[in-house]
């Protein structure tokens, strides 16, 4: 039986290092299977977050050979097995232990986004083609791989100024809901910091749900903000009307 070498980061806030483990390869095996093998056979206390093991819950995010991925969805046979596979925790969030990071910032930010609001006389009729725009963003499994790879958060640590791609599609999902009447444009411009995104599309590339984060959410949101705050025609109209 062939063997994969896994170099798993082990440590906590104080520091740590890679530890190498040999794992026998089974057909179709994914990185999370290999980590479970290590847990059951070598180190029972190795920390990894996971739930469904079917790419539906977005819990098992890690950086595999330097790339942000779901460990449950990354098959060993898609990786070069002639050298060790490195598995590290997400870099953008503080480490708790081993592969587990503290992602609570995402939950705090999300609370700040005003929820869905509808008009009193809503008749709840919606066409499929109209709900599909929002539905694309509602596929999000909150794995935070997009947050991890976003350089505004990862390299510049602008967590106080930019909500990150996950929250951009959350806002887009609400803004594009056919019956929503809440206005989140000022939040987008100010607190959520949509202007920080400079459209490198790294988030779109790592999204396991293949959501077009940049093209379908962030760019349209930027346009809405620009239309409201920076459109010269609207600016002139406002001046004339005195509002």
């Amino acid at each position, binding site marked *: 039986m062939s063997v994969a070498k896994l170099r798993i980061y082990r440590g906590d806030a104080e520091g740590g290092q890679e530890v190498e483990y040999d794992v026998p390869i089974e057909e179709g095996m994914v990185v999370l299977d290999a980590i479970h093998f290590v847990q059951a056979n070598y180190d029972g206390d190795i920390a990894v*977050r996971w739930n469904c093991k079917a790419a539906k819950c977005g819990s098992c995010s890690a950086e595999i050979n330097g790339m942000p991925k779901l460990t449950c969805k990354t098959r060993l046979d898609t990786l070069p097995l002639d050298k060790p596979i490195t598995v590290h925790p997400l870099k953008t969030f503080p480490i708790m232990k081993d592969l587990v990071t503290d992602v609570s910032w995402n939950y705090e930010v999300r609370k700040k986004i005003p929820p869905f609001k509808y008009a009193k006389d809503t008749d709840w009729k919606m066409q499929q083609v109209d709900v599909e725009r929002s*539905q694309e963003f509602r596929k999000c499994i909150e794995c935070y791989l997009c947050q991890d790879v976003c350089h505004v958060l990862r390299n510049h640590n602008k967590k106080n100024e930019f909500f990150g791609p996950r929250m951009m599609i959350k806002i887009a999902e609400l803004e594009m809901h056919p019956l929503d009447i809440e206005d989140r444009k000022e939040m987008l411009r100010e607190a959520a910091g949509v202007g920080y995104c400079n459209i490198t599309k790294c988030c779109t590339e790592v999204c396991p749900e293949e959501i077009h984060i940049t093209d379908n959410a962030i760019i349209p949101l930027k346009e809405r903000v620009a239309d409201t705050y920076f459109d010269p025609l609207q600016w002139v109209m406002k001046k004339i009307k005195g509002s």
Partner: protein
Amino acid sequence: MEKFETHTHDVIVIGAGGAGLRAAIEASTQGASVGLVCKSLLGKAHTVMAEGGVAAALANVDSKDDWKTHFHDTMHGGKLLNNWRMAQLHAQEAPERVRELEHWGALFDRTKEGNINQRAFGGHTWKRLAHVGDRTGLEMIRTLQDRGIHTGVDVYMECTITHLLKDGDRISGAFGYWRESGRFVLFNAKAIILATGGIGKSYKVTSNSWEYTGDGHALAYEAGADLIDMEFVQFHPTGMVWPPSVKGILVTEAVRGEGGILTNNKGERFMEKYDPERMELSTRDVVARSIYTEVQEGRGSPHGGAFLNISHRGAEYVKKKLPSMYHQFKEFAEIDITKEPMEVFPTTHYVMGGVRVDPETAQSTVNGLFACGEVAGGMHGANRLGGNSLSDLLVFGKRAGTGAAEYANKINNDVKVHDEEINNAVKEMLEPFENTEGENPYTVHQGLQDAMGDFVGVFRTKDKLHEGIEEIHILKERGSQLKIEGSRMYNPGWHLCKDLKSMLIVSEAIARCAHQREESRGAHSRVDFPNYNDEVWGTVNSVISKDSSGDMNLGTSPLPQMPEELKKIVEGGYK
């Protein structure tokens, strides 16, 4: 003894899937102070994996549908062992609960008229399942999550409840630990709602996630509550079989709902033999047994399953209506389901049995202890219809929230937490660190999964069940002395020690109830008693409770009497 933090709420909800979230929202809306405690991060609970839809007689697609037909279908699906009042409330209230989700921002797929679309599912007379492609559960949990965080519920994430606390005959709190630090935490509460889901991780081949270890069943049992109908474990007919890494992962019933066809290795559409009327859309118990039998008798697919084909619906349609299935097979099995058939085999999916509750309030037989969703028993009888679980958790989540808030409002503030209970809990939890000798919890868990699969699976016999019970007793012995490595910080091995105890309790309950029920009904198939025995077993629920000496007590209790007008609705034979 070490110091630990304390939180005080009127109501503590344990579990943050659909049922727990719905219950927390309701209790909070009723004015109670609510703490929602979940083993994982918020939004990761097993509800995200529900795919096909939520059953509610909205009558948007088939205008003849109404609650009576839904009630009839549910009772027949459960082979009349359901708690009739739960089934009635469920059928009556599900449409309103679904519409309510829409008002909270859920976006279901639409009909041409712009209403919520509904699809066909096994055992449902009409097209009844409101859905979002094949990710309905995710839509529901996100909607409830959004609602929950904006209604003032305090969420305690990655926090595991290990013990319920009692003051005399009533609930006084819950004790547990933070996953990250391993430190203990006490919740003072007047009422507790269990919404912990199921037990699938007691089996090796399962569609369930790691959280499904029967925690709520075990907590209720330890607190003195009755469990009913534990022999009824649903094996979903279609789990993936290949490659080994994904064995057991769910293949949604929506594949059959959208026209998927099952065949054996001879190309025969074998459901013609087992249920010519309903074919692939027969109830789950029947389809699971049919696939199992085909494979047993040598007509299985290369990896030991049946073929399930949807490619005739065309690539565009399949990708649109079943996107997760398309990706799941493409990525995990290198199969393009728009061109080739899938291979499927039954997988442990759901437990119909659970905590015995009052249908109106969801209160268990212990004062102040409530249960809703999969951890509660009675609603689904001997077999659950697809789509009825998502509606169940909404209907009874809401009812449990109301029940617990009203209860908490009524009782005095003098419920006490007793030090002795806490000391015992701490001692039990720390044992695996202190044991100088003992077994690895992972090894014992594997042993339990093997035993449940081998002896308490799809088809059961007296001898096998007996062997299974013996094996579980040995595993209990092994599980009583575990040893683990490392510190208390985010230690999965330590966590498994407690989960294992819960799984051993529910496994014993399942095996012993299955041994007792000498007939076949719904998901419980006895080879030695292949027929219904309506006179003896069609009139009783199995009941499990912990007796005063700490042993597991097994018995039966008569089914509640159904009123005449409801009897008329369910008239006619069931299969």
